[in-house]
């Protein structure tokens, strides 16, 4: 039991930090431009695929640096020549644009790298178990993922709160017009923040690609969870996104590990449920089986009882 708790906590923490790498960029972009980037998870996928392609020529490590930079540039270009064109049509058009973009990226990736998963391997340097606890090993690469994501988190925090660039970004979040009056190029800031957010997503892709599976469906499976994170955390709130990322990471990892159904619980009190009765599936389903729907249930509950999210201050 202790083994389960420790490993689930570690995996949950890891998953939560990965989610935060994505959610932080998404939140920054949202609070600055009011655009909920539907294609954010697609940039994560692009990061994984770019990293894979680079690793085939020069190994894993250059890809860790190059892939996020490339994806960041791609994101900045898309902001400059795509998103900025539709900006004048309003937020719905922007959301639709990023929706179409996600569609194109998924089709493009399927065309270039095929519909099945690619063989993106953990680098040899990190291909060993980090430690063994109760006969279960924890791979070193996962430790590395944890370190990279925590380091990025700290760097992001420092960048936003301690540097001049961060100050300008924070000011542009709330008062873009005033920042423009002070002589800063606000469209350029928007473009760079968009590119930076995409780069962060790509970094998550490069470190998650070898550990999870690098396949065309990875964006579509992570994207909705990501929106759950930013909505539950409160649209536009970085601390909220952090808490929600960790919470959803932990909840999902623990849920997958628990093999208990409602029927098992009622059986403790002597009530037997007939699996063939009406909605019998519902009572017999274990928590591990319903794990995929837990984030969405959480989303609906949060929106019903606290529509602005955990830490959100704006009512969208």
């Amino acid at each position, binding site marked *: 039991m202790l083994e389960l708790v420790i490993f689930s906590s570690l995996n949950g923490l890891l998953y939560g930090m990965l989610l935060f790498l994505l959610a932080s960029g998404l939140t920054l972009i949202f609070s600055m431009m*009011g655009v*909920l980037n539907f294609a954010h998870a697609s940039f994560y996928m692009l990061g994984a695929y770019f990293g894979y392609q680079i690793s085939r020529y020069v190994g894993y490590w250059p890809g860790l640096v190059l892939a996020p930079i490339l994806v960041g540039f791609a994101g900045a270009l898309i902001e400059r020549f*795509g998103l900025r*064109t*539709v900006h*004048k*049509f*309003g*937020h*719905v*058009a922007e*959301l*639709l*644009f990023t*929706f*179409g*973009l996600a*569609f*194109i990226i998924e*089709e*493009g990736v399927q*065309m*270039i790298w*095929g519909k099945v998963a690619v063989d993106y391997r953990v680098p040899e340097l990190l291909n060993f178990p980090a430690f063994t606890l109760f006969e279960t090993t924890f791979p070193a690469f996962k430790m590395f993922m944890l370190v990279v994501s925590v380091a990025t988190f700290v760097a992001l925090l420092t960048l936003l709160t301690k540097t001049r660039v961060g100050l300008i970004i924070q000011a542009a979040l709330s008062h873009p017009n005033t920042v423009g009056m002070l002589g800063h190029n606000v469209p350029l800031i928007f473009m760079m923040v968009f590119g930076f957010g995409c780069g962060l997503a790509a970094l998550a892709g490069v470190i998650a690609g070898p550990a999870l599976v690098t396949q065309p469906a990875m964006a*579509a499976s992570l994207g*909705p969870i990501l*929106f*759950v994170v930013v*909505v539950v955390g409160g*649209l536009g709130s970085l601390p909220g996104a952090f808490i929600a990322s960790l919470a959803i990471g932990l909840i999902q990892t623990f849920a997958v590990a628990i093999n208990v159904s409602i029927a098992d619980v009622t059986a403790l009190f002597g009530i037997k449920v007939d699996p063939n009765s009406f*909605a*019998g*599936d*519902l009572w017999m*389903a274990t928590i591990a*089986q*319903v794990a*995929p*729907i837990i984030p*969405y*249930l959480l*989303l*609906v509950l949060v*929106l*019903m009882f606290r*529509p602005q999210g955990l830490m959100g201050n704006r009512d*969208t």
Partner: protein
Amino acid sequence: MSVMTRALPWLGGIAMILILPHVFSSGAAISIMSLIGFAIIFALSYNILLGQTGILSFGHAVYYGLGGFITAHALNIIAANKLPIPLPLVPLVGGIAGLLFAAPLGWVSTKRAGTAFSMISLGIGELVAACSLILRGFFGGEGGISTSRTSTLQLFGLTYGPQIQVYYLIGVWCLICSGLMYAFTRTPLGQICNAVRDNPERAEFVGYSTHMVRFLAFCIAGFFAGIAGGLAAIHYEIVTSGVVGAGPSGFVLLMTFIGGTGFFIGPILGAILLTAMQSLSDITGAWLLYLGMLFVLMVMYAPGGLAGLLLMHRQVATRQGLTRLVPAYGFAAVPGLSLFAGIIFFIETSHHVLVKSAEGMQMRLLGFSYEADSPTAWGLIAALIVVSYLAFRRTWPIVATAWTEATVGERSVPDDSKPKPPAKANVDGSASNSRSTITAAVR
């Protein structure tokens, strides 16, 4: 407008439904036209949300799919108990199911508008899609729910075995639902939906609860989506868990938007175009890529959709402006079409190299036979794209000037057509900034 002009499009629709099966009488064509029939209902129901009330849903297929599942179960129950219910009434079961699911889910999600609503609809869509894999009894797991449309009460000797009978059934339902949805846009509630879309704050001040208006629109949209799902269940005789997922939800958004959300005819055009394209998808393996690019181009340059483009020109045509426009269009069409051809060559050749390389590099496209990996071919494709793009850009100011001349003075005429996309009339005639002029002109 006189009664006659109002009735004309509907009479035309009835005539189309009656005549088309005689023109295209092959089994495949009738099947495609049946698909178009319920796609039209689905897209129109979606437009009640997006076009009329201004809320963007990413989970509309939930009500379509659940309507389909309930219809399939209802058909099985009718067959098992020999209930005296004829098949033509069964889609109504799907509609009521859609309404019953839309009511509680809609109440929660329409509390918010804008981005939050979109996210909630996405979450609910994912929730139902994930549930479909857990509740195997209802959703039938991987295999789905099979049913049979022929074992209901038969009236007038119609068995609904042959596809043509199902086609007419779908056609009649399509007409009834389109008529009802059109009538809805004319009701006070339908008009208030537009008010909530355009200025929710003012609508609240006038005394309408925006939540209530959005909720009612959502329920009506869910009802018609359920009917479409019921017709789909009758057509396919099987419903699988995929229909409640993100795929159909996204597809209906593409259909509606590409067709045009600002006009009643728009979603109908989109449903016809995209369903026909989907059915022809064996011509190219990359058709979803084309679809995505078409959608993004539409979002960027023609937010009014196909219907917006067409109706814009109808207004010009009534003012004899087309004589001025046609030569300019003809001029722009040459580089435009060659750019289009270049992009098709690029995508198809890449697709051949990347996906079908096992079949050998020899390929045929638009009458040309060439090796897909030859540098000459790639050089020619690149040259074609670059040259025609540069030429195409040079034609933009010409088109923009022609457009301005064709429309000058028209803007002062009051426009009673339904919501226009946020158009900014550009009548200054300057062609110096070709980019901004063309984007304004295209709308």
